[in-house]
């Protein structure tokens, strides 16, 4: 016969209290107290908490414990009220169910997500470290019109379209945009940024010495970027300049081109400027000449392997559905309670 004072009985009583509404209350209170204390006296409490879910056993254990206690209490509550009013019980249950799904997804993402970022142009390899297969980047669709306008030196730029890139696996081609991310054989991809890559050729006389694309952040126009072409000792700086201007009243609009851009070019050798001028004219320095062909386009591609992404999204949708239902349930309970007086 079970000894009511034995250790087994004590463990059972302890678990019963832990999985009761009081237990849930104290678990949440403990987490709140821990978090706020860390936030006041430590640094970046939330980021530390999320990072801890990725590598700390104790944090993971506490999170899973909290999740299980919350789920148990939610299920008990629904079961207890189901007999009285099945409809109200189900309506009440949607929001907590969504919150639990969200919690589960958040844990999966925090604990198991791997991600990486790569600058990619058409023809580049796309191969995140966790992926065995190698993909290839296809055509990049710019986020801007071939010619676009910037007004009165404004530095802000919102893209006219969503930049996109095609990712080609051996079997299929996937069109990857900015949002939502595209799922390609176990990995999510999306575009984080877009820019132009000047196509540069450097010659000595008729002989080409170096050529290639330089991934540069030249957007919005006015941004200065630089690159080098080892083993050449030069440092090259570029800035987009307008292909023409349009004046209307007191406003001046500068027209830029991403298909045939013009650059302000400066070339330095050991800190000394050996050339300053526009790419519209001849760019010559130290017996060399530099020319710009039609640019390529690059995107900054983010890849992530994340088992929790869809779960988080599902949890959000369920909560959005459950929130108005919960308000209705609470209003009905309040009405019934007040009417009973």
């Amino acid at each position, binding site marked *: 016969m079970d000894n009511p004072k034995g250790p087994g009985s004590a463990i059972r009583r302890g678990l019963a209290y832990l999985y009761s509404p*009081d237990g849930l209350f104290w678990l949440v209170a403990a987490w709140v107290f821990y978090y706020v*204390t860390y936030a006041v006296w430590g640094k970046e*409490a*939330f980021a530390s908490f999320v990072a801890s879910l990725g590598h700390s056993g104790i944090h993971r254990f506490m999170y899973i414990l909290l999740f299980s206690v919350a789920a148990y209490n939610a299920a008990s509550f629904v079961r207890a009220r189901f007999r009285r009013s099945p409809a109200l019980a189900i309506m009440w249950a949607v929001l907590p169910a969504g919150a639990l799904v969200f919690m589960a997804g958040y844990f999966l993402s925090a604990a198991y997500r791997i991600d*990486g970022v*790569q600058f990619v142009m058409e023809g580049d390899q796309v191969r995140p470290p966790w992926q065995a297969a190698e993909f290839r980047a296809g055509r990049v669709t710019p986020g801007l019109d071939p010619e676009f306008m910037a007004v009165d030196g404004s530095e802000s730029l919102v893209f006219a379209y969503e930049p996109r890139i095609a990712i080609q696996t051996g079997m299929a081609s996937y069109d990857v945009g900015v949002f939502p991310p595209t799922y390609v054989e176990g990995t999510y991809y*999306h575009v984080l940024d877009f820019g132009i890559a000047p196509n540069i050729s450097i010659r000595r006389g008729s002989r080409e010495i170096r050529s290639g694309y330089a991934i540069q952040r030249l957007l919005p126009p006015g941004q200065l970027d630089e690159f080098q072409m080892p083993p050449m000792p030069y440092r090259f700086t570029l800035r987009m300049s307008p292909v023409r201007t349009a004046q209307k009243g007191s406003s001046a609009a500068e027209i830029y081109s991403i298909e045939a851009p013009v650059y302000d070019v400066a070339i330095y050798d050991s800190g000394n400027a050996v050339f300053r001028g526009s790419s519209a004219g001849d760019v010559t320095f130290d017996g060399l000449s530099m020319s710009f062909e039609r640019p390529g386009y690059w995107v900054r591609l983010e890849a992530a392997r994340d088992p929790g992404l869809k779960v*988080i999204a599902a949890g959000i949708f369920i909560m959005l559905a459950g929130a108005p239902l919960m308000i209705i349930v609470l209003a009905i309970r309040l009405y019934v*309670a007040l009417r009973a007086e």
Partner: protein
Amino acid sequence: MNQFALEAAAVGAREALKLGAVWLVLSAMLEATGRRGLAKYFYAGVSMAALALFLSFSLPAGIAAREFLARLNGYVFFVFFFLGIVVLYQMQRPAWGALQNYMELPLKAAITMLSAFYFSPDLAGSSMFLRELGAMRDAPHAVYVSAAGGFGLVLYITWLSADRLRRRIVRYFATGQFLMFLALLKFLGGGTRGLSESSLVPDVQRGVMKLVHDFIHQLFVFLMVPDHPMLNTTAWDFIGIFFGPNMGMAISLLILVFLPVMYLYRGLTMDVPGVDEAKTGAERRLLRSGEKRRRARLAAPVALFVAAMLVSWYASRGEQAGALYRPSPKPLIEDKGIVVIPLTDPSMDLFDGNIHKFSVLRDGKDINLLVIRKSDGTLAVTLDACEICPPEGYGQNNENVICVYCMTPIPVDTLGKPGGCNPIPLDASITQSEIRIAVSEIDARWADVHTGKDSEAGGE
């Protein structure tokens, strides 16, 4: 009476008002429950807090001490708010009555320690402020006398009206309500600077909004939502709502008032105990109405807390919006590949805790630098740009540096570390008299901002 003396008197009055209000409510509750003897533990706690006041005279009144006291005060608000919520909810549980039997012994120690904990940062901080006020006026004694006068006058008025007020207010307070009242007092009057910073509202707002911002930001990272204008304007405006100050304010307010509101809701909807055992309808009605009246009285302080939160939250919204400090950069001249920022320039004090900006002309464009003192006394020297956002620079809001583009708050003490929204650190040589930065270092770090090639594969 001059301006400084008036302000000192007002500070003294403010501290006396808090002390008097707490004493009034506590003594009323103790008297009502036949526990007047516990009052001496409250006096002991206040005495310990007064000790902190005198100790603070021996501490240097610097930025580090002020920041520590500001944090401590915010933490005290949280502790009492937390205790208030816990006790309010436990009071609605059947086990509360039995639990109270176990609380007698720790109650005396708790009253002493909590009283000391509650009043220490207020008294220490206010005394530090008065010291600074006295130093500005060059007549510290006049300031202290004014503060003592304000303190004594308000305390005397409180003592005179105590008997009349105690009888009226005791019906509205139980333990949980008292703790919420303490939290509210701290929230509205816990500032330790002058009258312009009397409340903790901005500090609490910042803290909770940072949590909201960090949570939303992390969620967007998980969902792979871009946080830059890569989408069309409509979609970006929709996403921007979640990062906007209105959303942060609303969610952070919801976090603070949700539990008190749920307490009020439960009070209205919970069954009245003992009604089923009543023999007659009249008895049942009597029981129900008595219990409802009791709950309504006890709900009043909690409702007051919620109302005060709502009003003060949105009243200080205007302060938040305009509070971003963005100084104009001072130009630096390059000399033999080095730029120098003097530490002893009479027109600026790099150690005043504010951000200082400087500009260096490179290839026809100004590159801005940022210098700020951290709480450990060292200077952080960075670019006025991060690796992620368009370089619109940073502003300052008390102990945070704020990215102007994405409004991410960055604690000052984390400056100097690279990554994320942090301004890009510069390798600078700091001597006794100046900061020296190589122009090549500025160029290299600025190039990192624009190419983004520091940690990624790809390229030409």
